[in-house]
């Protein structure tokens, strides 16, 4: 299935959750925020959030700023 992650087209096998996606990119869930199709997903729901074809995922974190 094809998913857009941070604007990049990616291909994954099915049965992918947000929790698995985060670990694929070696990210810690404590330090990120995730939007699925423009809706923020709570950290507690990463395990049960199953991704589907054509989903759009945004993963953000804190960077340097003023």
């Amino acid at each position, binding site marked *: 299935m094809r998913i857009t992650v*941070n604007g990049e087209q990616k291909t994954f096998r099915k049965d992918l959750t947000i929790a698995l996606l985060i670990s694929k990119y070696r*990210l810690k869930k404590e330090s990120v*925020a995730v939007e699925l199709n423009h809706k923020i997903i709570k950290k507690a729901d990463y395990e049960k959030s199953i991704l589907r074809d054509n989903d759009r995922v945004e993963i*953000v*974190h*804190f960077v*340097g*700023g*003023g």
Partner: protein
Amino acid sequence: MENRLYGLFDILVKLYGGKMKVNKQDTGILEIAGKKFSSRLWVGTGKYKTLSVMKEAHEASGTDLITVAIRRVNLNPKKGEETLFDYIDRKKYFILPNTAACYSAEEAVRTAHLGAEAGLSKWIKLEVIGDEKTLYPDVIGLLEATKRLVKDGFTVLPYTNDDVVTAKRLEDAGAAAVMPLAAPIGSGQGVMNPLNIRLIKEALKVPVIVDAGVGTASDAAIAMELGADGVLLNTAIALAKDPILMAGAMKLAVTAGRMSFLSGRMEKKNYASASSPKDGISK
């Protein structure tokens, strides 16, 4: 060098200890939305040459609040690439995310919610930018975003113009503190309109933090002498040739400016007034 300066400051404090106590009681604790801050200087995390310089500058500044931005994670990091939080002790510093680069109330509200989810705190430095060249705020969007985020339970600290009417409106909308600019972000021009900062401070009940445009230590001292409750800056430290030394200078300047404000300065006069007695001159 900076350690020597702190040493000198500590000695002065001890020498005058009996008569003039330089402690938190004398300069007043900065309290915003029930949270107490020991430092009236807040600093950013952008534009540093290296993250280890940033870390040392944070320590030298004595701050307990640092600002961060919210951006997409890099999906293809280089091996061993370090992240910001490898250099920030989250137990030591309160993290204030911003909504920099948001050009509408909608974008700013969305970014604030993302920041809350990433950081698990509902404090936001709210920016709604209206113009790319000056980075001046879009105060109409800012007011709207403030109202919405207050309703959503956020502690909102809006970055705004040095305009007393807007500042008042933001306070009325529920802003926990109001943060007028000294000058355009990153310009290092210092307090361009001292009168406006003073008027804002006089008109508001919530704390006033001068945010953006400070270039050097005297600028920070001036902001504090005008009565500001705190100063938030980034570029003045990050782009100084020695950021760690400048961070120490800013710490002293903010403290000095605060003490100067509280002490009540002398009146300005047009002509000289001798400090030494006129009489008793030996002839």
